[in-house]
């Protein structure tokens, strides 16, 4: 029977990646009870994760997967196209979705009223649909559609935070995100106007025929700005700190690890697969601009993080810095740099999600994520705090952790491009990360727990488990790198080689 089901759906796995969560979201709305909705979400999320694993395996063994939706032939119909690049990103996205969901019920109990929790799960699944769709589609306009699906659901998720600041953060993100999305739409429109097609592979071919053209340049600029807003690249990152800080803890863990990563993927896809990175804006290489923005993000993000009192906000600024690393890797335009950026997608997702889950645990027990809530936490919640220390060391880039793998490739990329000052800057910013992480570690281990604190116990297993799955992964994948770095470097080679 398994055989039968497999032959039935085996070819349609890419489409199921989008269809199943979408339908399940509706199912969650019909099912009113929170735990039932959660069960539906769990089944769907984990099967999507398994699906992503199967797809990655298929891409590794047989090459790029091309799936024509609805059977319409490819340049005219919408294509789902999975190659090494988006298979890796898909794995990360679905994996994070699945693991974070483990911690969800306990965590949102404190932040979302019981009669709205089923809606939370529905929106969560919708967001997952949008992100997965954005990742695997091979059609430029489809990217916009799924982008808006995921964005709208993220706005809704963020607004569920327990303070009223969540509302203002959500609307700030909404305004900026919509402007970004609309710019992307504009850019895609211009590309369509010039080439007459929306399929990514076809766009690339047609653009090569068109040659240098001002419309194409403006389209590239519009898309870059639009994606830049979603990617929160400096200086378009203004929405990020508020959105991450005031959203429910689980939502922050989820979104921090996925939405900016998918935006980064979209940027790479447009840069390499469509524009084939041979654009010059009157002598200014776009890579030089990206490099400067990346360096600015690295330093300013880390510096501002050092002075934050709310640790969630600190990690949000840290994310801005880490996105700077990814953009920097992209700007080197060589294999090592691109590998560094891609492997950092994987590594940062694992690290940051783990750290935000730690904060979710702390929030649950201490009802605050300010630095003062961490006093003496090393003694009262030892497992949770140990997870923070390990995740923090990974952010710094201690060898045998995933952070080191990313740093390795980024520094290699910088040196390979002949830019040793940039390599020095990358290493300096790691030291800044050490400063802001160690602030928290000191408070946790050196300060005594405040007098009169209730008997604070360790976080519940349902939340500790996903936290340690992710933090454990920062160690496992820091040593076993053939999945993350191996696939990333193969994808980078493929992109630079011009294939798809």
């Amino acid at each position: 029977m398994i055989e039968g089901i497999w032959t039935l759906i085996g070819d349609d796995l890419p489409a199921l990646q989008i269809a199943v969560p979408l339908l399940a979201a509706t199912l969650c709305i019909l099912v009113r009870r929170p735990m039932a909705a959660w069960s539906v979400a769990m089944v769907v999320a984990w099967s999507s994760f398994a699906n992503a694993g199967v797809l990655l395996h298929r891409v590794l063994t047989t090459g790029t997967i091309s799936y024509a939706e609805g059977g319409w032939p490819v340049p005219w119909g919408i294509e789902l196209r999975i190659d090494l690049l988006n298979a890796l990103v898909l794995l990360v996205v679905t994996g994070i979705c699945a693991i974070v969901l483990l911690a969800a019920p306990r965590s949102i109990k404190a932040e979302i009223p019981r009669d709205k929790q089923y809606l939370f799960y529905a929106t969560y699944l919708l967001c997952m649909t949008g992100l997965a769709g954005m990742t695997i589609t091979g059609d430029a306009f489809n990217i916009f559609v799924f982008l808006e699906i995921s964005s709208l659901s993220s706005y809704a998720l963020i607004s569920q935070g327990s303070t009223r600041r969540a509302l203002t953060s959500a609307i700030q993100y909404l305004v900026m995100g919509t402007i970004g999305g609309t710019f992307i739409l504009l850019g895609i429109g211009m590309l369509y106007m010039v080439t007459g097609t929306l399929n990514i592979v076809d766009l690339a071919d047609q653009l090569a025929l068109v040659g240098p053209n001002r419309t194409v340049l403006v389209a590239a600029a519009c898309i870059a700005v639009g994606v830049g807003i979603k990617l929160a690249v400096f200086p378009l990152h203004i929405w990020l700190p508020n959105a991450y800080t005031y959203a429910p803890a689980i939502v922050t863990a989820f979104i921090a690890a996925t939405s900016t990563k998918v935006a980064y993927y979209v940027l790479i896809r447009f840069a390499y697969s469509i524009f084939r990175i041979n654009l010059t804006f009157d002598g200014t290489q776009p890579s030089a601009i990206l490099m400067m923005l990346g360096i600015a993000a690295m330093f300013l993000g880390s510096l501002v993080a050092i002075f934050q009192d709310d640790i969630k906000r600190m990690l949000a600024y840290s994310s801005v810095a880490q996105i700077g690393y990814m953009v920097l890797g992209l700007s080197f335009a060589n294999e090592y740099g691109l590998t560094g950026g891609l492997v950092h997608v994987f590594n940062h997702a694992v690290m940051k999600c783990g750290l935000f889950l730690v904060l979710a645990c702390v929030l649950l027990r201490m009802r605050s994520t300010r630095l003062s809530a961490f006093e003496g936490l090393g003694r009262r919640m030892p497992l949770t705090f140990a997870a923070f220390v390990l995740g923090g060391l990974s952010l710094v880039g201690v060898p045998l952790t995933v952070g080191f793998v990313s740093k390795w490739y980024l520094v290699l990329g910088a040196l390979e491009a002949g830019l040793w000052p940039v390599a020095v800057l990358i290493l300096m910013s790691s030291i800044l990360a050490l400063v802001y992480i160690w602030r928290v570690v000191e408070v946790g281990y050196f300060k005594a727990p405040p007098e009169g604190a209730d008997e604070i116990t360790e976080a519940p297993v349902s939340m500790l488990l996903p936290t340690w799955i992710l933090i454990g992964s920062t160690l496992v994948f820091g040593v076993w790198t053939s999945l993350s770095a191996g696939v990333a470097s193969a994808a980078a080679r493929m992109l630079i080689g011009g294939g798809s």
Partner: protein
Amino acid sequence: MTAATAVGLAVAWPLFAVVLIIAFQRWPNLRETGTLLTGGSLFAIVAGVILPEVQAGGRPRFDVWEVLPGLDLAFEVEPLGMLFGLVASGLWIVTTFYSIGYMRGHHEKNQTRFYICFAIAISGALGVAFAANVFTLFVFYELITLSTYPLVTHAGTEKARNAGRMYLGILMGTSIAFLLFALVWTWLATGTTDFRPGGILAGKVEGPQLMILLALYAFGTGKAALMPFHRWLPAAMVAPTPVSALLHAVAVVKAGVFTILKVVVYVFGIDLLAATDASRWLTWVAAFTIIAASCVALGKDNLKARLAYSTISQLSYIVLGAALATTAGVIGGGMHIVMHAVGKITLFFCAGAIMVGAHKTEVSELDGLGRRMPFTFGAFLLGSLSVIGLPPMGGSWSKWFLMLGAAEAGQWVMMVVLMASSLLSIGYLMPVVVRGFFRSAPVDDGHGDHAGSGIHEAPLLCVLPPVATALGGIVLFFYAEDIWQLLMGMVP
């Protein structure tokens, strides 16, 4: 057990102690027995299985895992690493005995955490000693930093926390900013980070770049306390004395200078350095550190601080030996790792014994104490002679080889520097002995209840170790030939 598996086992073995310590944490005597058993068996493995193989010319290798293409975790033991491994595993046993005496005598808290971090730090030291390439060395180098941080900040006070900040800040800062850079550069230039006899950089890195790369390695190894990155050492004196003994003899600082020595011999190759004169500047930095640190030591009244600056000075002897890029210099440096370890650990043990037994920390307070604590001060005398470099202490041999190395390189100034440093070390070490034995104790020293003469030593477990290591220094004087034989295997 083959030597190859012994190598892998030796690095992981101290972690077995961690298991025992956690299991027996409620029964202190059992807990300490766990550490001692592990330490004893570790030394047996290192000295009994690995040493004969290396002495015979073998280079046992243990591959663990390839982390990234071209970056693998692997161990391979060669003479210098063998020596450092012996020092680390041997002195762990002695330090554990001393710790038992000190920690209990001082009624210290958190002893379980202390012994656990100790064990992990020793594992790190062995990892550094047996590393087959720069990457593996880097991994265990960072492990040492992280595992010794809780030891340095053991007291949990504000002062300890600030010292911990400087410790971590300088050590991790230099290792990330410089050492990691050097690692990546080496890999990019040569495709590997392996330690090979004769070095791997010949023909791959030339001219001024060679000097810059050497600078990155030298300053990136913050544990070697080359000025200006030395401030962490005196700051770390806030730690309990067994930790200072560990830091200054066994794990941390020796890992630092060992790294520099190993990199000079096996990554650069002394022939390359001698031919291109790329390490000349390092001899000057080392010389400056030697003299400047000795001068500062002269002015320090706190005994541990004085010993800290003495350590900074002595470490640069080894760096100087490496930088001279001659066979004798390198052998002298390697030998000094052993001699200084034994000599300095004696001095620190004595300082701790004085603290536990007489509650004194400043040199000016030590008048007449020698007569009440003759064994402690006797050991201090022998340790001082070793550090100063006088026979019949082992330290005289390492100094001899360093001078020989300077002569071989034609660097007469360095010979003068070494001799001047000996004089300065007489200046800051002998007053302790002189005050202790030849001055009379002040009338009212707060110890009214032991008025009058008579021996009132520190607890036995605080006195036996320094006496043992002091005598060890004499023994090493006669074993210097064997050490020389072993180290000759370094240079082809």
